[in-house]
């Protein structure tokens, strides 16, 4: 389990979040949903160790950590593929960076390339493939970290609707096939409702947890599911501050 407890962060006089807490169950998919500028990215910076918290603690599987840099894989909005490496070399970066066994890893990466629809593209350069394929390669690289916790920072927000839909199902594979524990931040309500086991609704700054929802609807989910439509209306109401159905 990932446990974030009582985290506070201030930049000067501005409080980004105060006494912020949430937890993620092992092998769960928790989505943090909040309005733009609420401090989601700062939270991820804090989780990855780019910035440090003023107060509070992080624990993964009961072990207290200053940040999750050593235990989490990371994927973000940009595919972050290095243009001087082929897709395969990019996917192997987590292994190369720590002087791991590249030959053994290459076989594993090749299987993942095939599984994620990149067969035949391993030796293409990043500029020669589409944005969606670049994100699939980033997904392979994320899996090559071989870490059970995956942090997703709006990983699909730069993609077109069709590609995003395909990649949403691939993100679900991380949970169902590769048994990862996932934490994703997004401001896309539909994406959150399609993927989350637990939805954490955040307030504008200072960011606190406004409401949590446990979604029991089986995956893969459909946009026209009446429960999701009702929940979407409720969440939208909460985020925009307009009237909403309080039956949740």
């Amino acid at each position: 389990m990932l446990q974030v407890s009582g985290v506070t962060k201030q930049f000067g006089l501005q409080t980004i979040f105060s006494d912020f807490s949430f937890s993620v169950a092992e092998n769960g998919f928790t989505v943090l949903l909040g309005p733009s500028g609420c401090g989601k990215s700062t939270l991820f910076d804090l989780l990855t160790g780019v910035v440090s918290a003023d107060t509070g603690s992080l624990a993964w599987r009961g072990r207290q950590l200053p940040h999750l840099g050593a235990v989490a894989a990371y994927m973000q909005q940009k595919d972050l593929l290095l243009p001087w490496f082929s897709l395969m070399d990019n996917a192997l970066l987590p292994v190369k960076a720590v002087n791991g066994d590249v030959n053994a890893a290459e076989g594993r990466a090749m299987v993942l390339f095939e599984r994620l629809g990149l067969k035949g593209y391993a030796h293409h350069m990043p500029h020669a493939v589409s944005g969606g394929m670049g994100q699939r390669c980033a997904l392979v690289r994320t899996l090559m970290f071989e870490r059970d916790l995956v942090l997703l920072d709006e990983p699909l927000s730069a993609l077109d609707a069709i590609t995003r839909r395909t990649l949403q199902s691939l993100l679900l594979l991380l949970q169902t096939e590769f048994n990862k524990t996932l934490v994703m931040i997004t401001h896309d309500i539909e994406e959150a409702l399609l993927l989350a086991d637990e939805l954490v609704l955040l307030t504008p700054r200072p960011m606190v947890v406004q409401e949590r929802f446990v979604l029991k609807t089986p995956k893969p989910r459909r946009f026209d599911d009446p429960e999701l439509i009702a929940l979407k209306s409720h969440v939208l109401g909460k985020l925009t501050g307009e009237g909403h159905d309080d039956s949740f």
Partner: protein
Amino acid sequence: MIRSNLISLAVAGVILCLWEGGCRFFGVPGFILPTPSVIVVTAVMKAPLIAPHAAVTFLEIVLGIALALAVAVPLAMAMFAMPALERALAPFLVASQAVPVFALAPLLVVWLGYGIASKVFMAGVIIFFPILVSLLEGFKSCNRDFQTLFRLMGGGFWKTMTLLYWPWAMPHFFAGLKVGVTVATIGAVIGEWVGAQQGLGYLMIQSNARLKVDLVFAAILWLSIMGLLLWGFVGRLEKRVVTWKNNPM
């Protein structure tokens, strides 16, 4: 590309025609300002005389580049790895650039002698700064998201250096090297002016004293061609190494 080359040729052609025509029209004596045609003929006909001097200057420049790289590259890496070192050295490095190389040349000849060493050092001093600054800025310009990714991957300093920072900084490095190799000729020639027994700078001084101005210009022409060749070589090397330069990231 072809269009810009044509424009360059046209500009050069116009300048040379005005020069040639002006000298002939006004009857300017050759020992004051020889015509371009005389300079070209001298540069070709006196090649057996000029070439050995050019070879010496070329060697000084190449060794100067090697010296500058040997010092600037590790220093840039150290300054990038240790920002405190950068803050400590930056004022001295900037101040060193404010000193005219002409002022250094006589001292270097006194310290290193009339041989090749003082000229190599002069060329190295001139190239060093653009390489150091461009490489350091290249390292520092690395996107923060990539740095975070490498930190999360657990990449150590050297691995991150070789896999991320060096390739990232390559276009900056080559930009600095291009500037460096073109100004390297200045360092070598100034060194030769102050005290030498061979080299294009030495040939210029000797020819000027004998009013062989066409030979001075011929040496300048050889020097310019040398600079162009070095610039072209670095440009080609950059194209071979930085194959991703124009690709979107």
